[in-house]
């Protein structure tokens, strides 16, 4: 009985190591973004709004906006208008390329992050 138990535990641990990928965060994914992912917009947006596939914890989530030189844009505080939605207000943006970097924690505490770009074509 003991030998069976030890063998089962050993097999299970080996399986865990073999089956575990090097890095796998889960699992609130970006479902919708405003401005849209990869979009070009004619005027500076008032805010960046991200909608995720699942509710997120605002206290453990971040949204960062970077300009073309990777300088951080000062935004308003992170708002959490809906369980699966996060928003930051933006100052007027000059024409150019911008990157939104987001990192969020879903309600089951799994973390995801990603980035996307948008372009402002006119002030």
């Amino acid at each position, binding site marked *: 009985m003991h030998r069976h138990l030890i063998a089962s535990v050993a097999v299970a641990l080996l399986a865990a190591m073999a089956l575990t990928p090097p890095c796998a965060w889960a699992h609130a*994914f970006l479902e919708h973004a405003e401005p849209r992912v990869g979009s070009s917009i004619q005027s500076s947006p008032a805010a960046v709004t991200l909608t995720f596939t699942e*509710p997120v914890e605002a206290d453990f989530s971040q949204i960062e906006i970077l300009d073309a030189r990777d300088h951080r844009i000062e935004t308003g505080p992170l708002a959490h208008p809906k369980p699966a939605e996060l928003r930051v207000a933006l100052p007027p943006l000059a024409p150019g390329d911008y990157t939104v970097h987001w990192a969020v924690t879903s309600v089951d505490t799994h*973390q995801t992050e990603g980035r996307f770009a948008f372009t402002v074509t006119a002030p």
Partner: protein
Amino acid sequence: MTAVLTILGWLDLLGTAILAGGVSYAALVAPLSDSGRRVVYGGALLVAIILLGELAATGVRLNALAAADGSPLLWKLLATHWGVLWIVRCVGLAAIVAAPVGSPAQLVVVALWLLARSLQAHAGAHGTLAAMIDWVHLSAACAWMGGLLQFLLSRVPNSVNVAERLRRVVTLSVLALVPAGVYGAFVHVPTVADLVSTAYGQVLLAKVAIAIGLFALGARNHFVHVPALQRGHVTALGHLGNAVRLEIAGGALILLLSALLGALPMPAPTVH
């Protein structure tokens, strides 16, 4: 970190199955033996230790993203959806241990305690319905695996009545387990392609393959070994015991894969 989460999740599931399955066995099948009772309390102790480990590991994981507003990380963590359910699970565990073993009250507390776990995990993030279905799945798995373990530890495993009652509980568990598992698979893996192209889908397939093997073993117990025991065949008890040991080992492996599924990302949808 995925490996740590998987091991923690696995030990959590093992302790949960031992505890909840032992309680359901005591309430629905037969009184626990002394060793069975010790194993149940050992399961409770394991879950208590793992709960503390999960709190620490979650705090470490989330620290980097914590809002810098000066409030302590622990309070912030305990105020989240996960943290509130962590507190509920701790209180529930204490209530289970305090209740008389096998009493209806203990069975009800165990059921609610399992619901808190389902709400706290992946399924809970998908909504209340997904969590309820996961609860049925988890409860059935605990009744099955924990019940088999208690049967092995029983001092009177040759009692035909005990085997017959356990057979009924296990059969009902499997009947609940399969549809709940299929529903969960559809919720978490939206396309067939995701089953083979994502790590989550591949682990799910491995889990299903082992589960089919366990169902085959269970069916042999149901249709061959237990009826043979009822007819008084002298070798039936030995065959039944061997099959139950194999089922428990397979069940432990399935719980490991379930823990891995709890740590892996589910297939991502298209962004628009």
